[in-house]
């Protein structure tokens, strides 16, 4: 089936969000195209995660509209919303794994809920997804509390790709991980994207991850959006905050790393 390369998967139009008097988003617009890796970046508390939650219908913006796969998330029937939810996978910041289920059961849950496959096949597919995320075989039988932070993120990723979603949303995929695990996670996401053909939207402030993975980046900043474009374009931006973001001490080293790799 032919899908036009420039098809828009997510369209955020004029979104504004306020919590009391604090303005989080002011007239933010952006579009994510099929097959690209799009990142939402910015400092702490600038509303990256809030925008992600609005996209996946966990929260409503105060104004503006958000369309996912062409459907307006604010004017959508329960049934359409369910169909939409089956087409994306979400990896939460703290994993969001069900603590009363083992990792294998966590990964198998979307399959059990949404397909009619037999239990045996579901277990095999769950084991396959767990293996794809680089977790050891023994992890499947463990409960989330028995895993380390990095393993929990992988397990969460395995659950997010359980149904082979078209759209994968990652909230802070590398935050709280040691550099080695973080590098593994971004390798993993890159590999999954190549082999499964995913569209990826991630929230992150990990500059290494931005340089290595993101096709395009939107930088949010306490109200209006500060900039959108590729990392190269953004790094030439004369906006003082973006400049600070890229040319602070950590930004510079991440950039040099990225250059060396190219």
């Amino acid at each position, binding site marked *: *089936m032919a*899908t036009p*390369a420039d098809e828009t998967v997510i369209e955020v139009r004029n979104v504004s969000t306020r919590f009391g008097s604090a303005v989080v988003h002011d007239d933010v617009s952006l579009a994510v195209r*099929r*097959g690209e890796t799009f990142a939402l970046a910015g400092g702490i508390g600038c509303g990256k995660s809030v925008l992600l939650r609005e996209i996946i219908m966990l929260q409503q913006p105060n104004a503006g509209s958000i369309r996912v796969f062409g459907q307006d998330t604010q004017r959508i029937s329960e049934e359409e919303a369910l169909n939409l939810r089956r087409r994306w996978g979400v990896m939460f910041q703290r994993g969001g794994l069900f*603590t*009363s289920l083992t990792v294998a059961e966590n990964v198998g849950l979307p*399959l059990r809920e*949404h*397909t*009619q*496959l*037999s239990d*045996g*096949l579901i*277990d*095999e*597919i769950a*084991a*396959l*997804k*767990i*293996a*794809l995320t680089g977790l050891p*075989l023994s992890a499947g039988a463990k*409960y*989330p*509390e028995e895993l380390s932070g990095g393993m929990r993120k992988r397990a969460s990723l395995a659950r997010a*790709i359980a*149904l*082979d979603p*078209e759209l994968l949303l990652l909230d802070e995929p590398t935050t709280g991980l040691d550099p080695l695990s973080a590098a593994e996670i971004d390798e993993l996401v890159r590999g999954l994207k*190549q*082999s*499964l*053909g995913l569209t990826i939207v991630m929230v992150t402030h990990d500059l290494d991850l931005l340089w290595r993975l993101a096709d395009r980046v939107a930088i949010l900043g306490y109200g209006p959006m500060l900039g959108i474009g590729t990392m190269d374009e953004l790094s030439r931006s004369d906006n003082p905050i973006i400049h600070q973001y890229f040319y602070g001490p950590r930004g510079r080293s991440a950039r040099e790393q990225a250059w060396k790799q190219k």
Partner: protein
Amino acid sequence: MTTTRPSQQPADADLEITSSQEARCTGNWTSHNLAPLERRLPAIAWPAGNLIIDASPLAAMDTAGAWMLHGIVGKLEGKGRTVTLKGLAPGNETLMRLVASAAAAVPATTAPVVPGVLERVGMGTWQGLVAPTVGIVTFLGESAVALLRSLAQPSRLRWRPILYNVQSAGFNALLITGLLSFLMGIVIAYQGAEQLQRYGANIFIADLVGLSMLRELSPLLTAIIVAGRSGSAYAAQIGTMKVTEEIDALRTIGVAPMELLVLPKMLALMLALPLLTVFADVMGVLGGMIMARAQLAVSFAAFVDRLGDAVSLSSYLIGLGKAPVFAAIIALVGCYQGFQVTGSAESVGRQTTIAVVQGIFLVIVADSLFSIVFSWLKL
């Protein structure tokens, strides 16, 4: 974009044997459309000899579909046949390679080992009897040590949480305990009235209500309400703090969780429960008095007059004296169960339930022990 997606009305995955050497995959080999084929799979009559699987009519494939195809190929090759896949779209080919590379890590599904009878009895005894007993005795010892240490150094007592707990477990429970005790007084007087009237012993309604409420019912009733209200709250609070690593944080800061979380609750409840019991006594007797006047024409004055003779001071104090013991049981069981929580949300719910059930159970057991001991002492 390497995988393709199902069209508007996705056709189910299918596999047909077209000749003695060839099979064709059609439809959507995706997790949503795979189930009918999976059910049919064991019944497919594979031609003997080598086989070519033509995947070119495939509409779409995802990892689940690739896994199934991988499994089919693997099973046939296991029987010594050569299987050739042809016509795979480039994206699906990548997918097949990905699945094949991860397949080595996927275990064959095996039935879990069922432990023998003896093993299960042993495990049950350990987990259900020995471990909890050891645990609660340890906990009791630890709290006793913490209590003695605090009493030796009263400045270590944390008055703010004690007062807060007196308010939340005591003052805030006034309405519900008062109401229930009042109703209980009415019920007892109402049930007794008929019997007493038959013997013309109307005035003994004061004995009936006074003794039963003050000595037995109001301490027990209050303790049961508090076990449900506060015992559960203690377990849930401490349990959640354990899940969110707050307990560990307290330890690292150098604050003993026993001193901050358990002692204030226990002391506060030992203070609040007797006071609540007094209030429940008053309300229960009040209910009985109202009923006595309505049913037996015993005036308030006559009732109160008789009450003084009917209930001895020792009976009243016995009733009141049980309250601190019940309070200690409820607080200790609630806190202990809170500390038994392991990392999951389900475990918070389970331990909270156990806290309430065990709390009420132990309060009633203690009450029966008191009855036996007091009758032995002829009190």
